[in-house]
């Protein structure tokens, strides 16, 4: 039986993982994901791409809601800003895609300062309402600023070509998404073990105690907003390219709910949770579709006419069930399973 682990230095406490096997399986998974685009059909490939993009966006929200404890119901606003920043610069002004991606991160980050400022005074519910209001204001501003954004007409976006690489094929684009998602995941894991990440978690657990310990609340709350908006904006740009069309309707409010569902299902504040939650939430509608396909055609026809509705209902039900029966999320289930595996047949 394995004994407990003992750490002899602070560096040992905050290391990403002390297990060689975790590294081994992570790299194996990464390689599998990199090979997958060339081995599967177009439908599975598009699902894989969607999972990777969604994961990036949810990691962004996790920094704010999971790590810092600031609830945002308006993250879809940052998503749509990122998508528009990329589309406007690259399609309308013919800038290089790399600049477009940079803008897709920076523009939402700048806007997030505006949303973040009220958050310095507000807590909990009030902040949720402010961010919700913000996402509607953003939509309205984009529709009104016709000279910049083409208003309700939307912008068609092509697959980019950058750094001498051509991402126009589905496989290449999936690899680009894999790259971005991996980098984001690593960044989030490392933010967590840095000074800034510890400050975020201190604010989440007790902001008054955090301030007493010398954490500048204003500064770190704004940092949280900016990094979160930056990441979500990049995910928005990828989403726009994936849909090959950027419009306000393409980014419904449902995305905010979907991201929250991912965090809750996975386990708030945990990057592993985001990965597990994304897999479950994105693949759940597909699983239900397959299940209904076996059950009968009546249900299947309802599913095809009301995809959006069935999806939202599933998200709602999953959120309620997890909050009620497993508030720690899939990460909690995973930890229990691990403990069971190591200690069986003992309970502890």
């Amino acid at each position, binding site marked *: 039986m394995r004994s407990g682990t003992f750490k002899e230095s602070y560096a040992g406490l905050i290391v990403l993982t002390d297990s060689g096997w975790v590294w081994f399986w992570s790299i194996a998974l990464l390689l599998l994901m990199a090979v997958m685009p060339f081995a599967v059909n177009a439908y599975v490939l598009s699902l894989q791409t969607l999972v990777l993009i969604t994961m990036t966006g949810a990691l962004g929200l996790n920094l704010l809601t999971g790590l810092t404890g600031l609830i945002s119901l308006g993250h879809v606003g940052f998503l749509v800003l990122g998508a528009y920043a990329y589309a406007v610069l690259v399609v309308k002004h013919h800038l290089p895609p790399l600049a477009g991606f940079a803008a897709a991160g920076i523009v939402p980050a700048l806007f997030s300062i505006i949303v973040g400022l009220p958050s310095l005074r507000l807590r909990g519910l009030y902040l949720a309402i402010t961010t919700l209001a913000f996402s509607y204001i953003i939509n309205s501003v984009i529709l009104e600023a016709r000279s910049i954004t083409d208003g309700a007409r939307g912008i068609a976006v092509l697959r980019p070509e950058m750094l001498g690489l051509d991402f126009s094929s589905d496989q290449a684009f999936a690899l680009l998404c894999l790259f971005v998602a991996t980098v984001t995941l690593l960044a989030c894991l490392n933010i967590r073990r840095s000074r800034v990440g510890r400050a975020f978690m201190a604010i989440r657990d007790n902001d008054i105690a955090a301030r007493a310990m010398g954490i500048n609340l204003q500064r770190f709350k704004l940092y949280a907003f900016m990094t979160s908006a930056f990441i979500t904006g990049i995910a928005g740009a990828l989403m726009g390219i994936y849909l090959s069309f950027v419009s306000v309707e393409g980014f419904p409010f449902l995305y905010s709910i979907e991201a929250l569902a991912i965090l809750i299902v996975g386990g708030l504040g945990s990057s592993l949770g985001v990965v597990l939650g994304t897999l479950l939430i994105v693949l759940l509608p597909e699983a239900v579709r397959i299940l209904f396909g076996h059950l009968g055609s009546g249900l299947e026809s309802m599913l095809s006419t009301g995809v959006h509705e*069935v999806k939202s209902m599933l998200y709602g039900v999953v959120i309620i069930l997890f909050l009620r029966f497993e508030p720690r999320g899939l990460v909690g289930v995973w930890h229990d399973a691990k403990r069971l595996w190591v200690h069986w047949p003992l309970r502890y």
Partner: protein
Amino acid sequence: VLAELIASGIAIGAIYGLVAMGFAFVYKATGLVNFAQGEMTMLVAYIAWTIATSISANPFIVAAGAIAAAVLIGLLIERVIMRPMLGEPIFSSVLVTVALAVILRSSITLIWDAYPHGFDLAGGKSIIRFGGAGLRGAQVAAIVTLLAATVAFYLFFRFSRIGVAMRAVALDDRTALLMGISASRVHAVAWAASSIIAGFAGVLFAMIYDLSPAMFQLGLKAFPATILGGLDSVVGSGFGGVLVGLVENLAGGYGGSGLKDVAGFIMIIIILMVRPFGLFGEREVLRV
């Protein structure tokens, strides 16, 4: 034009005010913001419409059916979904209402359909003139309902047994429990009452405009009203609604429809920056 804008602004504001009262009612009793308020409004309106078109268009039968449905919905939500969440962090409970909102919204589209329906009941569309401005019957009814609800709630909180109990729970639920007040009954009454007010607002709104799945936005529009009036002030929320309706209509009349849609949201942000506890709400004092 100004008189018209003001009159219809007050009318739509009255409806916002009713929905906002529903928010405040639940918040006062349970400390939660019910993000599904707009959806409950919409659900009751759809049920009332179904009664009116398939059973009887007699306004009294429709009203009785709608109130019964609203009470049932409120109690059901409280008992099945919200009560098991007691004792969990506020964050979780509020997210449950967000999830509930999504579920209700999509089930309405699945059960009924996604198209707008006209809803005419007992001359709700006939025009009544006041000086320079004409109002529809249902708009007048909305203003009258708001006034009646304001008076009724003032008396309710002031004199009725359960109203006083509700204030006690809002003030300090633990002490209230020690005094022998059943907090879960107070919660049940709050949910049922907020569902009834929401139902009234929904039916009136559907009569003035149309019945459509976009009606849930009424809940979003009522947020500024509750926040302006103070989240914990039921009567203040009604007043906040009228103010928001007026501002929105004037902004729409003079600044275009884009501004009209977001006027309320811009108001939220300004109010929260300046006076987060609202005009009539109690200032929240934070002690460590």
